[in-house]
């Protein structure tokens, strides 16, 4: 289980000071598929980077009770839209490198996902399109053999068919012990894929619900998100009405 205890992160200082995370506590047990939602700047990416120890933060992150160090970090993989691959290497060279460093690297899954996305194995990644780069990033995160797979907006820029198909494939190939933490804006697309939704707002967790709980209350994920964020649907009508009347006055 990944446990975050009172994680806080502040960027900048003085006028540029911004609290990205404010005493966030969260437990992610093995085997869950967790959707991490929030507006831009809510703290989703920062939260993932804190889990991986990429940035300074206050608070404690543990993996099965142990701090995350080189000894256990290979149990976590990360797919990011910033891309973490080696641009000069081919996909095949990446597979060789991963096989060297991650004992549970799955060659079989690598081949299958490369085929699924129709990605070339012998072309340096820098020559891939943006969509292909995103797909490759996901492929490597999925094949590392990690227990926890963190995905930060993995399909930004990919078409809807690719995304939907991938979610289906993902559900089919995930082992029971594998955990996915997926940060995305695409609520409706992942609604049927995730088992739990965590909502972040201004660096705080404002909602944490399982899809089973939502089903029991007869609400959709979108309804839950709107409720949690106090979404005011009337503001759209209001602004149109106001602009419409001011333009007709002039």
């Amino acid at each position: 289980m990944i446990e975050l205890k009172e994680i806080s992160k502040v960027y900048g200082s003085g006028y540029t000071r911004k609290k990205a995370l404010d005493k966030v506590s969260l437990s992610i047990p093995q085997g869950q598929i967790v959707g991490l939602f929030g507006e831009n700047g809510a703290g989703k990416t920062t939260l993932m980077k804190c889990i991986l120890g990429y940035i300074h933060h206050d608070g404690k992150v543990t993996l099965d009770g142990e701090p995350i160090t080189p000894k256990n970090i290979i149990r976590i993989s990360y797919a990011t839209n910033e891309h973490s691959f080696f641009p000069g290497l081919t996909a095949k060279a990446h597979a060789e490198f991963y096989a060297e460093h991650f004992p549970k690297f799955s060659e079989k899954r690598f081949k299958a996902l490369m085929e699924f996305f129709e990605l070339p194995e012998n072309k340096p990644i820098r020559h891939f399109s943006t969509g292909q780069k995103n797909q490759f990033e996901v492929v490597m995160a999925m094949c590392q053999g990690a227990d926890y797979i963190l995905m930060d907006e993995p399909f930004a820029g990919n078409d809807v068919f690719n995304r939907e198909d991938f979610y289906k494939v993902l559900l089919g190939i995930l082992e029971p012990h594998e955990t996915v933490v997926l940060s995305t804006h695409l609520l409706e697309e992942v609604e049927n894929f995730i088992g739990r939704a965590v909502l972040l707002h201004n660096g705080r967790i404002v909602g944490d619900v399982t899809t089973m709980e939502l089903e029991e209350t007869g609400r959709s994920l979108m309804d839950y998100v709107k409720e949690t964020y106090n979404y005011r649907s009337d503001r759209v009508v209001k602004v149109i009405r106001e602009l419409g009347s001011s333009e007709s006055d002039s």
Partner: protein
Amino acid sequence: MKERLSIVMLAARSTVYKVILLMVVTAAVQTGLYYGWMVRHISPGATWLVSLEMGMSDSFIVLVAGVSFVILCVILCVTGLGPGAKSVYTLRRLAISEKEVLCCFALYNTLVFLLFWMSQILVVMGLCRMYEVLVPVLCEQNGVPISDRFLGPQTVYLAFYRDKYMHSLMPMAEISRWIRNLVLLLGLGICTTTFPNSLRYGKKGVALLVVMVATLGMFCGGVGLLESDLACMVVVLIAGISSAWIALGGVEDEAYI
């Protein structure tokens, strides 16, 4: 061990072709320049033959080597893991620590500089051989008298003592110069590794500039300049050790707290 080797291979894969190309182009340019110098100076009407080492200094061999050295530093610093991605995210998820990763990169970079040094020795020896073979032919063709002073059995051996660049490349019996060269290799290997790392953590990579300037300014030295060699070593050691200290400290702070 295999894991560390794969890190070295990772660094090699992204730069080795550029490094080899750079060395080949440098060798070709230097050979062309030296050949041109020989042809120009052993022409009809020339009354005396010029020396091997004079050709080394007159044909911009050293300048080409200097430019090539700067390009090599840039290749190792800028190219690194390749722009367009944050590969460091993957490196920081490996079972070996980022400090070890940095050490692997420093080892590779040091080996590259060693290779560059060796390639320059080979080029210079090749030029010496070219001088020995072509000078009699060109002199005969152009009616220039050959003097023992400029072409004899000791010509190449003496040139390695007389010419500053040749002597610094292969300092023969001057142990302090060999040691200085090894310190330079190590300093350059460390600083080209820590430079991009320092920038990533918002620090300045001044150490590399210091070592580069020291190399460019102090590499070519005549025989017996022990003080100059010592000064160069002290500067490079201070720069190398401090940059390694800062870089490794930064890793500790940023990665796992």
